[in-house]
């Protein structure tokens, strides 16, 4: 085989691998694995809520898009359409209960439904921000 042909084959293979890589890991890169991610913050649900309430902008900069572990006495476990939501409620506002609202990952739903309101729990999820409530998505149960 001629040298230029070998080079051409190598280039083509590298190109295919490159395209595959781009497709798999960039174009189709997976969503963040929140369940197995290391938490950026770990705190009481009450403290997180109060911090957001007192200073929304600074807290948004600090916590939005971060993985947070929140702990506290869970007020409710509810099914809202297709989502299972655990809430730590601290006061009443325009939209009723206000506090920290955590929606569970699909594989956590069975375990989540077994949680008892009023018990101390620790959850981990991805904080999407504050709209009178602190919203946490892709939640899993830590303990």
């Amino acid at each position: 085989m001629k040298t230029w042909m070998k080079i051409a084959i190598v280039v083509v293979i590298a190109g295919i691998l490159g395209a595959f890589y781009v497709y798999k890991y960039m174009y189709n890169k997976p969503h963040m694995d929140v369940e197995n991610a290391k938490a950026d913050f770990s705190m009481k649900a009450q403290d997180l809520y109060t911090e957001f309430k007192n200073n929304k902008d600074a807290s948004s900069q600090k916590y939005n898009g971060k993985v947070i572990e929140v702990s506290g006495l869970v007020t409710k476990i509810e099914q809202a359409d297709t989502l299972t939501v655990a809430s730590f409620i601290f006061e009443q506002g325009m939209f009723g209960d206000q506090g920290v609202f955590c929606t569970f990952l699909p594989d956590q739903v069975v375990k989540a439904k077994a949680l008892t309101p009023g018990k101390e729990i620790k959850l981990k999820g991805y904080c999407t921000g504050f709209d009178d409530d602190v919203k946490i998505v892709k939640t899993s149960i830590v303990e």
Partner: protein
Amino acid sequence: MKIKLKFLILVLFFVSTTTFAQKFITKNGYVRFFSATSMENIDGKNKQVSCALDATTGDFVFKLLEKSFEFERALMQEHFNENYVESDKFPEATFKGKVLNIKDVNFSKPGVYKVTVEGDLTLHGVSQKIKTEGTIETKGEKINAKSKFVIKLKDYKISIPKAVADKISENMEITVDVNLDKINK
């Protein structure tokens, strides 16, 4: 007799005000952000939309967090947050307004009622007036509200990256579908 009558009027007054001060709320409303393009569809879903409606005045508020939008592909979600709505700078979007013909909706009679709503949509830090049609379905303690309307990205100063500008639509279709629960206040 007179005292009794006065008392009756007073009772009626309180009964009527309490029944009329109806409010419906949810924290799990659904909003979809959709745009068909020649490359692929941009399709984001948010199932954690807060909404409150005052059944007497027709005043309503929608609030949502941009980061709560979920896309099939993580890269699109990233682009949406970083390049489109810049959710680090503008984490929230709100829609505040009024159901103009709230009187046409009979909350005590189950049915589907056509409504016209008008309000300010704040997205990407820019507020614009929106007037659109929708429906309110009443079913006792619960109601469902639906609407679909189109916004222009440039009205909200959302710029499309030049490289893909010819492939991405200027228009975004917003679908709203919320189930609200009655609260007594």
